[in-house]
């Protein structure tokens, strides 16, 4: 793979290549260029995951017309699709080199930070929501109980904006979460649950389920689970999975008649009927 990357850089197929390299004892994202080709010998694909596609979008915004090559896992590729759909990246700016990611018997080896069991604190293990669970585990009718459990999780929020800052598909210049008239400033925790629900609604049709938000949350709030539920609803109604293709999102159609949503089925949707 390294030899191919070197060739591509030399030929000018890419202007830069985004991958990882060991520096100061850490696997860090690195920009490989033709002028320093020998660095490509140190190219690795680490299991620490950084949102390389977000870096690519920022670089392309600073230097339009640049051609970027990138190491990509499945989640990176989904994020690239979503960024292209929402006009943050010109299609064709980024070319991906696939990396072993999620485990399968058909692949040798898998590298993903999500595969390691997270270190969960004692209290959270006892009473908190298991971050690795599925939305289906919350289908019980005890609405008050469910609400209390979620509120217990949200109340730990320290409003670091880590979930939003690291999200590869969050790109708004003016974020609703920072709007003083929507979210009152100066409170810790921020107004719960509205802070997290605003973010969840904005992730509908955009979240690509990479899990970086949960990895970045200092309070271990089960964000990925929450956004999975929201996107399950999107999938049920609009039959749309973010990042699966370059198909336009149902939320991006302005002015035209949106596709007819199907009525929510009575059972199994988790919503009120």
């Amino acid at each position: 793979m390294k030899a191919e990357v070197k060739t591509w850089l030399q030929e000018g197929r890419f202007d830069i290549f985004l991958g990882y390299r060991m520096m100061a004892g850490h696997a860090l994202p690195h920009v490989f260029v033709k002028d320093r080709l020998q660095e490509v010998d140190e190219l690795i694909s680490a299991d620490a995951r950084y949102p390389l596609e977000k870096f690519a979008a920022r670089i392309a915004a600073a230097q339009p017309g640049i051609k970027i090559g990138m190491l990509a896992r499945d989640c990176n590729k989904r994020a690239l699709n979503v960024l292209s759909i929402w006009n943050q990246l010109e299609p064709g700016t980024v070319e991906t080199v696939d990396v072993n990611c999620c485990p399968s018997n058909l692949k040798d080896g898998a590298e993903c930070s999500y595969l390691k069991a997270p270190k969960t604190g004692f209290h959270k293990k006892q009473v908190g929501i298991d971050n690795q669970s599925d939305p289906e585990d919350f289908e019980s009718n005890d609405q008050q109980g469910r609400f209390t459990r979620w509120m217990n999780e949200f109340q730990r929020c320290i409003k670091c904006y880590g979930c939003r800052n690291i999200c590869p598909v969050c790109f708004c210049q003016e974020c609703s979460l920072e709007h003083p008239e929507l979210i009152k400033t100066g409170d810790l925790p921020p107004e719960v649950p509205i802070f997290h629900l605003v973010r969840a609604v904005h992730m509908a049709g955009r979240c690509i389920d990479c899990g970086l938000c949960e990895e970045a949350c200092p309070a271990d709030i089960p964000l990925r689970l929450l956004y999975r539920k929201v996107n399950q609803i999107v999938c049920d109604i609009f039959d749309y999975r973010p990042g699966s293709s370059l198909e336009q999102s149902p939320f991006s159609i302005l002015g035209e008649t949106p596709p007819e949503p199907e009525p929510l089925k009575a059972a199994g949707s988790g919503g009120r009927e």
Partner: protein
Amino acid sequence: MEVKYVPSVCSYCGTGCGVLFEVIDGKITGTLPLKTHPVNEGRLCIKGWNLHEYVNSFMRLKGPLIKTGGRLRRVSWDQAIQVTAERFSETIARCGPDSIGVLVSAKMTNEENYIAQKFARAVIGTNNVDHCARL
């Protein structure tokens, strides 16, 4: 255009979380947590996430300033130290050494904190030394 990702340590409090700076053309334009750092393990507080704004802020002090006539005026280090020493001596003479308090902080190194408390106790002659975390 030169893009680099430079690892560093957050200077904001005593925890010392690992951060990764996105440096474009020699200027810090973005901050990310270091995912493999043992202290923070890929998480940051809001101050750490915004280091790039603090570093490049126009409000950063670049040199000593003295307030004269209600306005802050840029002066040399010698002048600033001279004025400070005069005012300290004058205050100690008028109100005694315990009228001065020294506040240290987690942003400084242990060595600087040591010097500050030594200065308070040996030079000024007061026990009034405290830390921002206790406030």
